[in-house]
């Protein structure tokens, strides 16, 4: 070993200074109060600081981790034109198969079903997609790949406007996007923001007469069909049981029917009790099994929330769908239930239901600007949150044509297949301006404005994995994690000191140095510290101790053989070295495999473990060795405190 140790000390010194400088911002950040953080956010200096600190993972800080996947069956349907029942049945079959066998690939199953059902693809897709089924499938696949990139961009945009610090949005594979939002409190709002396709459509509402007609047609279809009748009765029965076990099924039905068909059975503030009440006949349940589950609200129809499931189920039955497609119409619902008081004084949550033209008259690609505000005097939503829309010139032209041609009719403003409002058209609107109301609160209106501004998603996405850690669990975990790491560390430090005496100080130094260095590396890599990461840090403590124990035990052995401290250290180190390398490299292999395998938390674990092993090897071989050598350099050392 070289006698001149100065260069080695200089290297050690430089590394130590680097580690402390790198860790300083993290220490600084810990000292900040939440007001300080807010101040820094305003002055724009927060981001610079946050880039330099060790990030805390969602499990420590609380937050949301969501994996989104492009919904291919819906994308295929959206892209298709001239859709008919056969096409929709095929897509539905594919959906069901995929639900049962999640492992299978969409396009394989789709191809299979196409040939099985004898579906002629070129009928359904524009010539641009190709003339042969194969070409069409390939172009759809390309569209899907392209869609994910645009989805990524749009989500990025939305999240940026939402105002979260350090959001991570990244693509995983071809069809998935991972979104991590740390420190967010309102998970439902974030989900809505991400998942909303922001698909804005304007549908004309069918006239009350036509609506009345379709309802009686459905009544007939349900009545003539034993299965559907049983379903309606069963659901009504279940309701009776869940709502009130005492009431007999038939009783409950009679009550609801008399409530339903009473002339002013329900009162409501914003629905003027109208001239064209839809379902007002004094029919009994047996005669009108479908419409008896509905309520009349002025000139609107509404569904009691508890009946919603049954109604949707009946609407989705093929027999009913056939009737709807004959009438070229569709049913859509309001986003949320509203509470109304019945004449018996009970509060009942009702969801508006609308019968609309099947095809949209205008879709939302034409939106140029969207802003949330409070409805002013004279508008229909005084003091309510509303969103003001501005359309581009093309949209404004279409909008003006539609409104001009349909004065007196109602038009439904539909966002993501939910009807927000259905006002009557009073005059022709020529400037492309319009407004949407019907939001639960201002936050919701703001979020909708964000998604409308950021543009609609080219393909619908669905959440396939979701992990939410509430802020309190996160805080508890940090506290418990930090506390146990410090306690464990303290115990080990004391043990080493007692067991190896003065040499224990060297081992302790090595241990602290290791942890500092691992943290510094994490900070400079911009890595995220998760709970498993803390566990890996603890394992690193073990590895670091082990390296020193191997060396010290070897030195002790050599001393027992009667060697001088200096030769004992030299040969102890030499013999321990291969052991340490072999033992660490194998663990390193495990860490690398974990990293490769890794999703979020495991990756965090592997990162810390990898650097922990590398650094502890360096420390044991280079740093402690140097310190030992400087002891033995001193003349007259004939006893080693080990």
């Amino acid at each position, binding site marked *: 070993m070289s006698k001149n140790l100065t260069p080695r000390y200089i290297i050690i010194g430089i590394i130590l200074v680097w580690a402390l400088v790198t860790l300083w911002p993290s220490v600084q950040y810990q000292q900040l109060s939440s007001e300080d953080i807010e101040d820094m956010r305003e002055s724009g200096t927060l981001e610079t600081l946050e880039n330099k600190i060790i990030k805390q993972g969602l499990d420590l800080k609380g937050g949301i981790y969501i994996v989104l996947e492009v919904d291919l069956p819906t994308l295929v349907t959206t892209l298709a034109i001239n859709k008919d029942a056969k096409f929709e049945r095929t897509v539905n079959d594919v959906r069901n198969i995929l639900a049962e066998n999640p492992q299978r690939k969409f396009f394989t199953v789709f191809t299979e079903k196409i040939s099985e059902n004898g579906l002629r693809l070129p009928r359904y897709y524009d010539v641009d997609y190709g003339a042969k089924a194969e070409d069409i499938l390939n172009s759809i696949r390309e569209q899907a790949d392209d869609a994910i990139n645009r989805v990524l961009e749009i989500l990025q945009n939305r999240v940026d406007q939402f105002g979260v610090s350090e959001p991570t949005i990244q693509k995983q594979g071809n069809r998935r996007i991972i979104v991590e939002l740390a420190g967010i409190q309102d998970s439902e709002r974030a989900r809505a923001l991400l998942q909303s396709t922001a698909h804005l459509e304007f549908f004309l509402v069918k006239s009350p007469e036509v609506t009345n007609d379709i309802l009686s047609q459905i009544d007939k279809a349900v009545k003539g069909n034993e299965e559907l009748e049983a379903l309606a009765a069963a659901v009504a029965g279940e309701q009776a049981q869940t709502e009130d076990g005492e009431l007999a099924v038939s009783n409950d039905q009679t009550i609801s029917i008399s409530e339903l068909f009473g002339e002013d059975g329900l009162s409501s503030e914003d629905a003027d009790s109208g001239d064209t009440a839809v379902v007002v006949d004094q029919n009994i349940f047996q005669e009108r099994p479908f419409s008896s589950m509905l309520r009349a609200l002025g000139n609107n129809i509404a569904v009691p929330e508890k009946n919603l499931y049954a109604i949707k189920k009946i609407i989705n039955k093929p027999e009913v769908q056939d009737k709807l497609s004959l009438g070229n119409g569709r049913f859509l619902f309001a986003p949320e239930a509203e509470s109304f008081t019945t004449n018996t004084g009970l509060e009942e949550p009702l969801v508006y239901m609308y019968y609309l033209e099947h095809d949209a008259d205008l879709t939302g690609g034409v939106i140029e600007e969207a802003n949330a505000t409070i409805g002013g005097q004279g508008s229909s939503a005084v003091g309510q949150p509303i969103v003001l829309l501005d359309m581009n010139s093309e949209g404004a032209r279409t909008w003006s044509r539609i409104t001009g041609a349909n004065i007196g009719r109602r038009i439904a403003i539909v966002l993501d297949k939910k009807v927000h409002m259905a006002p009557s058209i009073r005059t022709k609107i020529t400037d492309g301006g319009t407004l949407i109301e019907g939001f639960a609160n201002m936050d919701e209106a703001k979020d909708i404005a964000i998604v409308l501004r950021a543009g609609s998603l080219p393909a619908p996405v669905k959440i396939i994995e979701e992990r939410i850690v509430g802020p309190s669990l996160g805080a508890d975990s940090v506290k418990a994690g930090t506390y146990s790491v410090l306690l464990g560390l303290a115990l080990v430090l004391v043990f080493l000191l007692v*067991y190896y005496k003065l040499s224990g100080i060297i081992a302790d130094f090595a241990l602290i140095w290791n942890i500092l260095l691992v943290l510094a590396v994490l900070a400079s890599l911009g890595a995220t510290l998760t709970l498993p990461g803390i566990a890996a840090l603890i394992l690193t403590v073990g590895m670091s101790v082990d390296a020193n124990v191997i060396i010290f035990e070897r030195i002790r052995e050599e001393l027992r053989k009667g060697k001088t401290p200096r030769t004992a250290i030299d040969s102890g180190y030499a013999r321990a070295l291969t052991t340490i390398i072999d033992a660490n490299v194998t663990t390193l292999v495990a860490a690398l495999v974990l990293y490769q395998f890794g999703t979020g938390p495991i990756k965090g674990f592997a990162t810390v473990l990898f650097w922990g092993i590398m650094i502890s090897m360096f420390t044991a071989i280079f740093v402690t060795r140097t310190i030992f050598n400087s002891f033995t350099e001193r003349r007259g050392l004939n006893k080693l405190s080990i």
Partner: protein
Amino acid sequence: MRLIKETSIQFMAQSRLGLYVSGAVIGAGIISLILAGGPLLSIDFKGGTLLAVHFTDPVDVNDIRSAMSTVSIDGQPFDFSKTEIKQFGSTRDISVRIPHLDKEPANFAQRIIAYLRKSFPDKVPEVESDFILSIEKVGPKIGSELSNKAILAIISALGLILFYISIRFEFNFALSAIAALAHDVFVTVGIFSIMGYEISLPIIAAFLTIVGYSLNDTIVIFDRIRENVKSMKRLTYTQVVDHSINDSLSRTIITSVTTFIVVLVLWLFGGEVINLFAFAMMVGVIVGTYSSIFVACPLVVRLHAGK
């Protein structure tokens, strides 16, 4: 200070005892696994929803269970009383695990949480975000992908390790080390099954760490054997192995004890989230240390004799 004086325990003579101990533990594990129909996998691998919520006052699991029997979402009734409902770290915190349903309503987890909040109005925090401790929801597709990945990870880790040891030592050593690792994983999975603990993604990470730790321990002894075989030409192979274990015994014990202290502290005070992880590590430290001496070494001796 010195805890371990120079020892000359004849470990190899005791290897039969090791066989019985390992056999008994693994046997019990296998019986438990058969009775339970395989290891208890978390939603990470099976898909499903896991909720943890915080009440302001202690709640009875049975009250939650009866409330969960009539969950109504948009009029669609659900009976979740058969799902796994248990305390989560304290009497105020409850976790509910619901297997994946084919047709889940939108915002499924949030709707259930809203329902629970409504069902116990006196015992819930005012703000919803204080009520939610965590929500995990894994789709079945992700679940099956993760299990494939986990299996792939373990196999490739073992393969790489086998390769490395074969190069650095000899093939016999590699085989014995792998057998010891397989032993460790079997024992830990068996103990998890006996305790009724479930295997989640972090637990797989713990298993791999155990593999790493146990290997580390085995290699240190192997390294001694490799060294002693050269210098102790007069001794039989069994004696050399015994000698090597004794030589490194002090190190083995000190390292195991310090690591054990750290994971024990983590297990006791680390919090609910990390609790099972720490438990797996604790089992791993004990089993890993044991298997280096009583599984890997006797196998090396046997394989050597068979040559």
